[in-house]
């Protein structure tokens, strides 16, 4: 794993921060919501207990336990807040609830809405009947086939009264009562106390009417008739329940209002979940879908409300799990999604009267605005942390890239610190940095410095040894010289001779050891002068022919002059060392070829000899100081300085050295390339 990947990983771990923040936020959220639930449920229970002590103010008829049965014509009467005008329109009822469709076997569409205000029951009907049949002026007892709405009420004593509204001219109209005359005839009488308004519409008609409670009993059946036999609604049946009117308990809402805190709506329900009283208004503090921009990460931040049930309660009754539980006797709370967005907390406590759940007290509260604010703060925090993480990743990548490049540069420098010619480069890149990489670079520099010192020491070792051993050797030799003047036996003279021979060899060795040092010294003093390399070679090779009669020398050189700038003594010494080397490995009677060629701006001077090939493993190190691996002739000491001297002199002239086997394997070729100038 590369450094940049490691750093990327580290940077990515900063993502834990937003994650932990979200987790904390959600737990806090959940806890606060639970606290809110508990508080609201407790309030609902308190109200419930208070109401239970005054059941008469809650229920109109405490003993009435009959269930609401819409199929049999039971109706809920909404409490209206002001007196509507009787004009055929329901807009002034200020009621959100839709009209209830009346059952019809024939598919006659009629919808009914009932309300009460003060002493009156208000009725509103919409009937879809494009073909209204007007009431005939005189009708027979059996001909009641005209468009009308029948109302039948039953008084507590069991007697029933019937009224109807019949279509005629649109406009205000009274109800009519069917009166059977003493003669058995039937005629209609207007009941002026019951006022209605007939409004013709494109699809049928609308009827609005006002009926004093004093004319009505506990039960009321309402039925719409078409001109033909079709009808919709309820017909009074004997000995059957139905047609009962359920409505809010008068005064209960006022009572309830004393319990309700602002922003909370309290509702008392009866066992049918119908509203008996309502107080307070729900603050629209719930989060509005339009006020916040839903982000993909919202789901990390807030409690997931999508699984909450939608608030579906109707104007007349309430629904939901919490309501059902309360009506069964258990206090519970529930979060709902408000229809217009936002959330609503609903807590329901059972209304226990005589140990029996007879209804429920329901409190509704909007979602805590503080929570919403906190959500927004969290959202900002989340954004900032994400930004921070992104920055950390970018920064980590930049740092990693920079470190990678730097280390790569360092590695390249370390790889190439020791050049092909054995020279050591002492400076490393990045050593000015103040960090660990700088320290590493400086450590490399110190290491290279030590290596260089060691190499230089090795290089100078020969010279130093030769220098340091000179004095003791001189002591030995001068002592032997003095000894020769003493009178000695023949035997002692023999020993003396051997000692002298030994010191002579030692001296030779020391001189050879110091050779490189002296060449370096000579190089410092050397001056380059114009010279003719060809003439130099002619002269030198002639000398070698005389000096080494055991080998055959061949000189191959260009015909004309070979001018260059150089130090002739050093060049001759270079040639000497190459020739010495060649002679050492050349078998008796072998050939040594000295060749000079001009290659563009430089000369190639090569000395080739018959003999064994170079050992492959040491080809690169032949020209190093004190490196001797080849065994030549045994009669002379070797310190591996000869070829090192060749290299020193070649480098002084800006040249390069090389060694190779002959292609056919019959010998080796040492070559030196020298620039002309």
């Amino acid at each position, binding site marked *: 794993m590369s450094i940049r990947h490691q750093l990327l990983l580290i940077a990515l771990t900063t993502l834990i921060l937003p994650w932990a923040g979200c987790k904390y936020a959600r737990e806090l959220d959940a806890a606060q919501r639970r606290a809110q639930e508990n508080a609201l449920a407790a309030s609902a229970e308190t109200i419930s207990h208070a109401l239970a002590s005054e059941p008469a103010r809650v229920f109109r008829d405490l003993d009435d336990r009959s269930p609401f049965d819409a199929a049999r014509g039971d109706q809920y009467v909404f409490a209206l807040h002001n007196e509507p005008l009787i004009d055929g329109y329901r807009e002034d009822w200020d009621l959100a609830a839709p009209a209830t469709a009346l059952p019809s076997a024939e598919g006659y569409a009629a919808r009914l809405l009932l309300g009460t205000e003060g002493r009156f029951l208000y009725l509103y009907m919409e009937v879809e009947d494009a073909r209204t049949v007007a009431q005939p002026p005189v009708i027979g007892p059996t001909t009641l086939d005209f468009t009308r709405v029948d109302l039948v009420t039953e008084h507590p004593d069991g007697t029933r009264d019937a009224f109807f509204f019949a279509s005629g001219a649109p406009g205000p109209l009274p109800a009519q009562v069917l009166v059977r005359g003493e003669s058995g005839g039937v005629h209609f009488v207007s009941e002026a106390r019951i006022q209605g308004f007939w409004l013709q519409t494109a699809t049928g008609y609308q009827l609005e009417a006002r009926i004093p409670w004093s004319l009505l009993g506990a039960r009321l059946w309402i039925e719409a008739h078409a001109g033909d036999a079709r009808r919709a609604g309820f017909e009074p049946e004997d000995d059957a329940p139905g047609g009962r009117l359920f409505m809010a308990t008068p005064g209960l809402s006022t009572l309830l209002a004393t319990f309700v805190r602002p922003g909370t709506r309290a509702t008392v329900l009866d066992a049918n979940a119908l509203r008996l009283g309502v107080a307070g208004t729900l603050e629209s503090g719930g989060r509005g879908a339009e006020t916040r921009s839903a982000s993909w990460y919202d789901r990390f931040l807030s409690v997931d409300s999508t699984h909450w049930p939608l608030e579906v309660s109707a104007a007349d009754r309430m629904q939901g799990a919490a309501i059902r539980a309360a009506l069964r006797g258990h206090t519970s709370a529930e979060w709902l999604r408000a229809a217009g967005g936002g959330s609503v907390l609903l807590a329901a406590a059972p209304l226990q009267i005589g140990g029996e759940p007879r209804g429920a007290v329901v409190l509704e509260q909007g979602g805590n605005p503080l929570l919403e604010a906190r959500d927004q703060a969290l959202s900002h925090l989340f954004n900032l942390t994400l930004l921070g993480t992104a920055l950390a990743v970018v920064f980590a990548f930049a740092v990693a890239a920079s470190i990678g490049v730097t280390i790569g540069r360092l590695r390249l420098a370390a790889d190439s610190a020791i050049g092909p010619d054995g020279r050591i480069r002492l400076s490393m890149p990045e050593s000015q940095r103040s960090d660990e990489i700088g320290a590493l670079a400086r450590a490399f520099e110190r290491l290279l410095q030590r290596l260089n010192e060691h190499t230089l020491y090795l290089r100078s070792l020969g010279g130093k040894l030769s220098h340091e051993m000179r004095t003791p050797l*001189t002591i030995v030799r001068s002592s032997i*010289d*003095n000894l020769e003047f003493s009178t000695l036996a023949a035997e002692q003279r023999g020993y003396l001779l051997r000692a002298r021979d030994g010191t002579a060899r030692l001296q030779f060795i020391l001189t050879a050891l*110091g050779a490189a040092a002296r060449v370096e010294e*000579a190089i410092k003093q050397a001056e380059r002068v114009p010279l003719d390399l060809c003439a130099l070679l002619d*002269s030198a*090779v002639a*000398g070698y022919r005389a000096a080494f009669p055991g080998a055959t020398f061949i000189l191959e050189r260009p015909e004309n002059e070979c001018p260059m700038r150089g130090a002739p003594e050093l060049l001759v*010494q270079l040639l000497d060392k190459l020739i010495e080397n060649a002679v050492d490995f050349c078998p008796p009677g072998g050939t040594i070829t000295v060749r000079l060629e001009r290659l563009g701006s430089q000369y190639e001077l090569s000395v080739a000899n018959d003999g064994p090939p170079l050992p492959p493993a040491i080809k690169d190190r032949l020209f190093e100081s004190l490196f001797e691996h080849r065994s030549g002739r045994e009669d002379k000491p070797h310190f591996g300085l000869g070829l090192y001297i060749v290299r020193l002199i070649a480098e002084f002239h800006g040249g390069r050295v090389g060694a190779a086997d002959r292609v056919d394997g019959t010998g080796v070729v040492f070559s030196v390339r020298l620039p002309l100038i």
Partner: protein
Amino acid sequence: MKNGRRAHRPGHRLSSHPVKKTIAIVEDEPALRENYAALLARHGYGVKTYANRKGALQAFGTHLPDLAIIDIALEDEAEGGFDLCRELRAMSAEIPIIFLTARDSELDAVSGLRLGADDFLTKDVSMPHLAARVAALFRRIDALRRPHTASEVLRRGALSIDAERMQTTWKGTPVTLSLTEFWIVHALARNPGHVKNRQQLMDAANVVLDDNTITSHVKRIRRKFIEIDPGFDAIQTVYGMGYRFVE
């Protein structure tokens, strides 16, 4: 005067001296000091040995030796010999001074000779060679004290060499050569045109030197002649073989 030719024969041993010459050896290595002292005493010289510059200088203040052999490094003074040479030369312009040292760098040799030493020898020099040099230097002192006779002078073109006095002139101008340099020039000039290889030059100069040292000696000699005559080209290098003197 008659047998002045002997002067350039190396290894010549002196038989007797009318007055015993004194030689001061300033050398901090006791074994070497004693060996040199023994050798020179055997050759009939009076020998005084000193281990350091201070002791030597003190003694020189009261009595000057006839010849001084000085090591460069003296005890804790790395260049003590140079200082001593300078001080001694200040006391006497004529006294022969030989540097005998383990140091063989070109720079040391040049410095030593520039301070007025007559010869600069490395400790490789053998006892007989050292004795020969001492004898040669004394002979020159003697020759200089005697009246000059031109018959002993070897002439090769512009070069003239007085072997007895070990004096060399080029085109009439004296050339200051050290003893070793003198012997090399003498060996080359005796047979003009003949190539002398390095070994022959070493034998002539009573030294054992390696190639580079011979080369630097020759270069130094050339430089001294060129200082007098920029056109000097009488000593030529024959690459791979040696050197020759051309008239």
